[in-house]
């Protein structure tokens, strides 16, 4: 068995559950148009191919590059270089991040363009740059992650008092949107590259995680600060219509191709530019090593393109149709259960999740196994989706109540779980909200909102991303607690 086949099988097993659940739903509660189902099946096959290629590409390209860059800047032994690199990398990775671009456009339209999308994009990217810098400082000077996170979340709570609740929710959504599919592996590898230079292996292991967490917090804080300067915060919700049913099977793939291609190029370009820059100025790798990483970039790009195309053209409308149909027919309990189940299976096929779990296994040499992380993560996301759907039927439950209580629990747990799980958990929060969640699950929630009269479509569906970013933090820390209790040496 070679690497290609193994990766392919691994991805196949993680995409099959979501395909089965949708098919089962189709044959039990709803009967969707034949063309939609065929398109969904076609898209599932494309997701498997795209995701396999993407992950292989990340393995031999982006991750290798991130490790090398991390090592190289640490070896310079100059704090100024590390800080400048952190600031610039954070900025250029996020300013081109497709998820963030879409998010800022949406936010601008919801807020009636009081905050222009380009201002929001620049501010959020700058925030991410500054926080990536802080994350690097933390690794080098051994600042414990939980103390930093505690300070940052206190700042967020303080800012939250002066902001209106809708903006707070938007800000938390931003944290999910910033950590895109390519940014995650690159940032993880950078952090690993820097921290593995440490002599103390326990610390180096711990410090490999937590960088994504700090970066996500950066996005929240910068959006909230921006909100303070815009006193007139009357958020006017946009109206979202149910899409017209497209019965042509292949047509949506062609329609979406241009914009998806643009997104994929934008996502990979900054990291590729960093690669060329480092290769010609600093690394001067041998031709063989250069070509290999280059191939990795090509695989990642092609894989990402196929994956995003499949998800946008084949998964989005089916998610929305399922949600709309179930809610419209008043199957409230089933809507929640389906939401929970979709949350559980969707996260398995999320690209960045594969990268994170792989990294966790590598860093801990299999001590924290991929499957245990996936169980906790899936449960977390399932609960999040279930909660967001439940909330649509009970508008009295405000999203920020849940966020407040949730983050208080998450912050409290930080003090008792093994420290490596703090980093992993908060990283997973940022990682869980990838392109599949942001399209398929979001579409499902929007569909449910469309089918429920009492709900305000855009505002209500916004909070879903923040919840998906929150619950894994809690469930993974609980996993850490279980490890702590179970892993005690017996018989001594």
């Amino acid at each position: 068995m070679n690497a290609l086949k193994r990766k392919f099988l691994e991805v196949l097993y993680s995409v099959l559950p979501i395909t089965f659940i949708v098919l089962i739903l189709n044959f039990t509660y709803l009967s969707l148009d034949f063309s939609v189902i065929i398109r969904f099946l076609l898209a599932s096959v494309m997701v498997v191919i795209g995701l396999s290629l993407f992950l292989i590409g990340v393995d031999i390209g982006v991750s290798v590059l991130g490790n090398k860059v991390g090592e190289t800047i640490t070896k310079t032994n100059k704090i100024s270089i590390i800080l400048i690199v952190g600031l610039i990398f954070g900025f250029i990775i996020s300013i081109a991040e497709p998820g963030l671009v879409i998010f800022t456009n949406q936010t601008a339209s919801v807020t009636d363009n009081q905050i222009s999308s380009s201002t929001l994009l620049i501010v959020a990217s700058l925030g991410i740059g500054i926080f990536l810098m802080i994350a690097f400082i933390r690794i080098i000077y051994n600042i414990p992650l939980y103390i930093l996170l505690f300070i940052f979340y206190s700042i967020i709570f303080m800012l939250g008092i002066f902001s209106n609740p809708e903006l707070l929710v938007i800000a938390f959504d931003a944290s999910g949107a910033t950590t895109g599919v390519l940014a995650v592996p690159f940032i993880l590898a950078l952090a690993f590259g820097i921290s593995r230079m440490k002599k103390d292996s326990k610390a180096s292991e711990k410090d490999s995680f937590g960088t994504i967490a700090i970066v996500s917090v950066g996005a929240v804080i910068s959006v909230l600060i921006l909100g303070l300067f815009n006193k007139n915060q009357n958020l006017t919700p946009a109206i979202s219509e149910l899409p017209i049913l497209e019965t042509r099977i292949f047509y949506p793939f062609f329609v979406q191709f241009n914009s998806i291609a643009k997104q994929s190029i934008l996502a990979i370009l900054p990291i590729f530019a960093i690669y060329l820059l480092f290769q010609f100025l600093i690394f001067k790798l041998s031709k063989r090593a250069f070509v290999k990483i280059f191939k990795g970039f090509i695989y990642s790009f092609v894989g990402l393109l196929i994956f995003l195309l499949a998800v946008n053209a084949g998964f989005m409308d089916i998610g929305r149709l399922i949600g709309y149909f179930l809610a419209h027919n008043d199957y409230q309990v089933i809507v929640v259960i389906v939401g929970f189940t979709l949350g559980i299976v969707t996260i398995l096929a999320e690209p960045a999740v594969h990268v994170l779990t792989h990294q966790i296994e590598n860093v801990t040499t299999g001590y924290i196994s991929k499957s245990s992380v996936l169980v906790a993560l899936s449960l977390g996301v399932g609960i999040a989706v279930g909660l967001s759907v439940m909330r649509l039927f009970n508008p009295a439950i405000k999203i920020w109540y849940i966020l407040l209580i949730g983050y208080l629990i998450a912050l409290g747990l930080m003090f008792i779980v093994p420290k490596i799980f703090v980093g992993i958990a908060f990283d997973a929060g940022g990682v869980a909200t990838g392109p599949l969640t942001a399209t398929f699950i979001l579409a499902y929630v929007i569909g449910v909102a469309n089918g429920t009269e009492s709900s305000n479509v855009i505002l209500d569906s916004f909070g879903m991303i923040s919840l998906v970013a929150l619950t894994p933090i809690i469930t993974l820390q609980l996993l850490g607690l279980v490890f702590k209790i179970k892993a005690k040496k017996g018989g001594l």
Partner: protein
Amino acid sequence: MNDSLNKNNLTLIFVIVYSKMASKILKYSKKCGISGGTIFYGTGTIPNNKILGLLGFDEVNKEIVLMLGEKEVAYHTLEMLNVKFKLYKPNHGIAFALPVSQILGSNLFSEERRENKVEKPKYNLVFTIVDRGNAERVIDAAVLAGSKGGTIINARGSGIHETSKLFNMEISPEKEVVLIVCDSLKTDQITKKIYEELEIEKPGNGIIFVQDVDKAYGLYNNTEL
């Protein structure tokens, strides 16, 4: 093998397999009488496949399992592994055994030395397996005792004291393997120093074992073979 080895001789088993297999190997070996093992990651190559090489897929992830056992048990385990995991087929992994000359820190095997050795080897390879985070202390101790340094490998492992389960998955604690190649004259003082510093005599604190090395290059104060 050398005929002069006594019957209780200890043997180190190496098994190199594709990733995800190591836990199964270790579990099965325990059934065969092995008391514990240590697992670490490696990368292997796929030779003679031009297409895969061209595509850039010429590397695979491997896992390496280290297990100690008495010679009889070890050979039995190797045979069983060979059958169970079909190692005789191509691309199913490899397993081999090497003699161990000295062991410290395991209460299963009494401390013993290989005697009657006709010719003492010039070098020794000292393996020290400790909990994650302690490898630096091992190297510090070894350097104090005259070693030139060491190599640390991140690993996970399980011995008889450390097995717990989580949703039917075994949790194997994180370990570090330290490899030190040294002049055989210094072996005793190095192992003794590590033994004292790391309190190896207490169960669960680690294990040290020594192998003979016939040839060594690159040890900079010994230019000749």
